[in-house]
């Protein structure tokens, strides 16, 4: 087992060319590199190119090795440098976002009825960018 002190958590954007879309690549990562994954967002384009936003947790060295393995196979790996942030000045705590945020990242704290934003639960679906009535949610590059 890996030393828990070296455990890290990192998000990546993986782009799969169409010949790799139907291969069990993520499964191999788990078996061979002992990393855990959490899929945040997955899309396949009309050209059958796959885009996967994923959070990996495991030993730092294992995660690096896993990503090198993916790149050798032809997967484009980008560390996720985008995030959805809340502009606190614009949020009026109306709660509209709770109705459409699919992951519960935006949720109303009861009974005080303040809207909380838990960035770690955000799956980057981007619905809040257009759904928030005061445009309090912004897309940013880290």
């Amino acid at each position, binding site marked *: 087992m890996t030393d828990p002190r070296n455990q890290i958590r990192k998000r990546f954007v993986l782009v799969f060319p169409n010949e790799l879309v139907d291969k069990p690549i993520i499964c191999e990562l788990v078996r061979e590199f002992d990393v855990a994954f959490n899929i945040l967002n997955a899309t396949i384009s009309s050209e059958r190119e796959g885009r996967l936003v994923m959070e990996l947790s495991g030993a730092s060295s294992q995660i690096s090795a896993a990503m090198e393995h993916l790149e050798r196979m032809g997967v484009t790996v980008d560390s996720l440098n985008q995030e959805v942030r809340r502009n606190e000045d614009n949020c009026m705590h109306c709660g509209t976002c709770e109705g*459409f945020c699919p992951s519960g990242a935006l949720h109303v704290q009861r009974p005080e009825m303040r809207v909380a934003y838990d960035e770690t639960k955000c799956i980057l679906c981007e619905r809040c960018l257009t759904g928030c*009535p*005061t445009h309090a949610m912004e897309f940013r590059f880290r």
Partner: protein
Amino acid sequence: MGRADGKGMQRTIAEINDKITHGGAVVVTAEEMTRLVRDKGVPQAAREVDVVTTGTFGMMCSSGAFLNFGHGRPRIKMQRVLLNNVPAYGGIAAADAYLGAAELRVDDSGNQPFPGEFRYGGGHVIEELVAGRKVRFEATSYGTDCYPSKHAATWVSLKELNQAYLFNPRNCYQNYNVAANTSRQTKYTYLGILKPRLGNVSYSGAGELSPLMNDPMLRTIGIGTRILVGGGVGYVAWEGTQHDPTVARGERGIPLGGAATLALIGDMRGMRREYVRGVSMLGYGVSLALGVAVPIPILDEDLAFRTGVSDADITAPVIDYAEAYPARKPGALGHVSFADLKRGEVMVDGRAIPASPISSLVMARAIAELLKERIRAGAFLLTQPVAPLPGPEDARPMQPLPEPEP
């Protein structure tokens, strides 16, 4: 029921104002009053409390601003007026216009591609003016002997405008629909985004803190009542559009749906941006989210009883915004209490469904607290209404648009 029977504590607005002026008036918010009445009973709460402050904060589309820009040199009869590219109504006197909260920019693509984003409109211009920002002004006209100019363009801000006041034909709906969606598609409504197959419900309103829930029979709220609009001083001007106090009521006199509304007026110069917010409703349009606070004088035990209303006493109809609402078909999917709505889950059709608000209780509480502090500081006196608003007996029920003639 603990209702007033003509006996018990009595006080007048003049007596309350005397206490406010000299210090010592007891002011609590409507949420605090609910707990006080529950803990101590109506007679004791009536003796202890002079004023209850209520508050609401939500999207109120029927809002807008009357603005006077001053006269240019040469003069222009401002027929078409644009503010940051949002049209204001210029069919009134030369230098006046009315900017509606729900007006879109001239270059807005409407609901295309669907759902439209509606990122900027009248409500946003109003927010920017209140925030003290400069706004692009453009006016065109046809030219007359007395108003020869045909075009004017400049920048304006609140401090240059001669008059700038909100005049809102319909605010503070006493009660409102809870929106649901029984169809298989997502619906984009003025009550938010509704998931298919009853995936969620959304609602607007502050429940037990809401102004017209605390004076449901309009005993103290009438024409001329001094209030806070957008954080500044305002007044009740008239009954609001669609005012219909004839709707069915529960045992405490709380209407089971829509009911009373208020037309409000308020000077934009005293307002704060946090209580006056332009909003975009995906797939619907633009609007203004506005904070309003109304003081209720506790003149007798009946008013203590009324202001003791709790979320459990208030129910709202669940309406299907996929079918019944757009087609104007009668019938509700059920009735749910504000206690359940605020808890975040309601029962509809035997199913537990997540409920989320689109109005801000946080901001409603803030403006009710603001009014409480102003009254305590002696900076806000209560008013006797100049005339009452139409009540259940003297109002006429709301009518639909006449059917087209054959």
